[in-house]
């Protein structure tokens, strides 16, 4: 180990520690207390004297990550604001400033309002179902039973499987003719056989198609809701609950006054994360229906992709994507506040 360049005050601190611990009192706790005070003070003084060097070291370590994020997240975000104000397109690299024209064009198109409405319906309906399923599952997983680890491992698979891959399985299950779901429904007599008028074509009928897309989102994220709830619940120290029980609180009171306030922040963050990811996800709808039939499942991300990349109108696409910002901003802001409070 390198022995040179040890600061003088550090040497003194070290000497003092050795001295005190050699001649300390008989009680180890008292000795520890005696040692820690001068040791701490000396260390702090030493930190201060080296603060410039320390800061330089810290900023150097931080710089690569900070630069990457600033250049490739911050930069593009600002750039997308600029793009939205121009007529930039894939074909024509020279963009001219057009003001708010792209936003005006978006708002005037009927399809934009359909997409906005679908996005909101998607978000709300999916949130209700994953909340219900997630809460029930979390309640069951809170119990003690054999094989819990295996059960947990199985039920979280939808969340851990890459989304673009699991959607394919659903696409096959929603097949217009060979749908295994329809086979089951027909088997128990809920619908007729193939060709009968009540045979659902999941991805071909407007309301069914939206429901089918929502179902995939719910399937994928209900384990996430459950696990977040569980994480929240296990963060409540058992002795606090015991204390409440000893004080004569009923189950409901314990939940209302002890558990709920403690798990609420975690739930909130989980919910907000899910909001951001559900609102901005394009893969489920894009792979199942591409927004069809008609515009029945068109949501804002799909519309932005189709206009920005497929039609090549970068500026108009960016403008549509930016309409997501007012929807996302409250969620991001609340996550920020929650995280800060937890720190």
């Amino acid at each position, binding site marked *: 180990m*390198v022995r040179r360049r040890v600061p003088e005050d550090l040497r003194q601190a070290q000497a003092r520690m050795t001295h005190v611990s050699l001649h300390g009192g008989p009680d180890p706790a008292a000795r520890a207390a005696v040692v820690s005070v001068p040791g701490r003070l000396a260390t702090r003084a030493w930190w201060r004297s080296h603060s410039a060097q320390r800061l330089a070291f*810290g900023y150097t370590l931080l710089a690569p990550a900070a630069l990457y994020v600033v250049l490739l997240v911050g930069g593009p975000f600002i750039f997308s604001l600029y793009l939205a104000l121009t007529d930039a397109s894939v074909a024509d690299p020279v963009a001219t400033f057009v003001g708010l024209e792209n936003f005006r064009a978006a708002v005037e198109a009927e399809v934009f309002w359909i997409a906005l409405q679908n996005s909101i319906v998607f978000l709300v309906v999916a949130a209700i179902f994953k909340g219900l399923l997630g809460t029930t599952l979390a309640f069951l997983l809170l*119990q003690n*039973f054999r094989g819990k680890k295996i059960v947990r491992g199985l039920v979280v698979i*939808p969340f851990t499987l890459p989304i673009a891959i699991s959607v394919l399985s659903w696409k*096959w299950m929603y097949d217009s003719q060979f749908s295994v779901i329809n086979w089951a429904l027909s088997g128990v007599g809920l619908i007729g056989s193939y060709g009968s008028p009540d045979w659902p074509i999941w991805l071909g009928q407007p309301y069914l198609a939206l429901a089918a897309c929502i179902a995939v989102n719910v399937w994928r994220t209900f384990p996430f809701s459950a696990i977040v709830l569980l994480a929240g619940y296990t963060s409540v120290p058992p002795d606090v609950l015991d204390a409440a029980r000893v004080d004569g609180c009923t189950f409901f009171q314990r939940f209302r006054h002890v558990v709920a306030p403690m798990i609420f922040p975690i739930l909130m963050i989980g919910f907000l994360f899910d909001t951001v990811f559900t609102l901005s996800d394009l*893969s489920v709808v894009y792979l199942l229906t591409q927004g069809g039939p008609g515009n029945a499942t068109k949501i804002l991300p799909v519309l932005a992709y189709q206009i920005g990349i497929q039609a090549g109108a970068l500026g108009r696409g960016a403008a549509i994507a930016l309409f997501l910002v007012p929807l996302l901003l409250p969620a991001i802001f609340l996550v920020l506040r929650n995280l800060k409070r937890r720190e």
Partner: protein
Amino acid sequence: MAPPRTRGQKEVRRHLLIYAGLTPFIVIAVFPIYWMLVTAFKQEPDLYRMDLFPLWFHLPPTLKNFQILFYQTNYGAWIVNTMSISAWVAAITLLTAVPAGYALARTRLPGAENIGIGIFVTYLVPAIILFLPLSRVVADLGLQDTWWALVVVYPTFTIPFCTWLMMGFFKTVPMEIEEAARVDGCGQLAALLRVVLPISLPGILTSVIFAFTLSMQDFLYGLAFVAPGDQKPVPVGVPTELIRGDVYYWGSLMGAALLVGLPVAVLYNFFLDRFIQGITGGIGK
């Protein structure tokens, strides 16, 4: 039913109730995967017999679907692309996120807490807002239509997440260990490299796993930036290249999806609690 008398009977009944409650969840969660598995090994005519029980084989299982994948499509290339992309993304993420996490947790920078939260919040800026401007960045770098585009872009979400993860991790490493090394005469960098990093290996490994699994969750960037068939990663190649117009080779599709999806799902499964801790800010608490 007679009320249960002994404790044993009560336990059994309780277990039965819980299992009964869990069964629908397990079926819902696992059925799509089971369905993929059966489909992947079925012969083509066996897929389209609605009059027979579809959940099992009526013709002998076959490996033909996988042969098609490896001999007649770019599947092999997609796997290689995915591995290369993941390796590069993991390397970039480690080289940036580990030092940054350490700096924010340990060097007492003014405002470190806010900088940390600031970096983490960029994880919440979704791809759908960034992909159009990033398509310009990728084009200017001359990387459009190669998988290198994704190597540049994926760290935009792995770095924020892993920096946050490592920051939480370094906070749990006792300060005394590092101070002891400094007292022994180590410089700041030497203390980091020789003392702190070796005991942080579990955290670093976790970051690598997340760089890999989070990259696998992307679809939009791959779809938007990489058009040539042999340059795509698996999650993008399978749904875009294996479906030709209206013709679906369901057997091969399901095989392709499973072969890569399952290992990723299993790996992610082991680290799921870390992910949840990470996003709820509960690391090191």
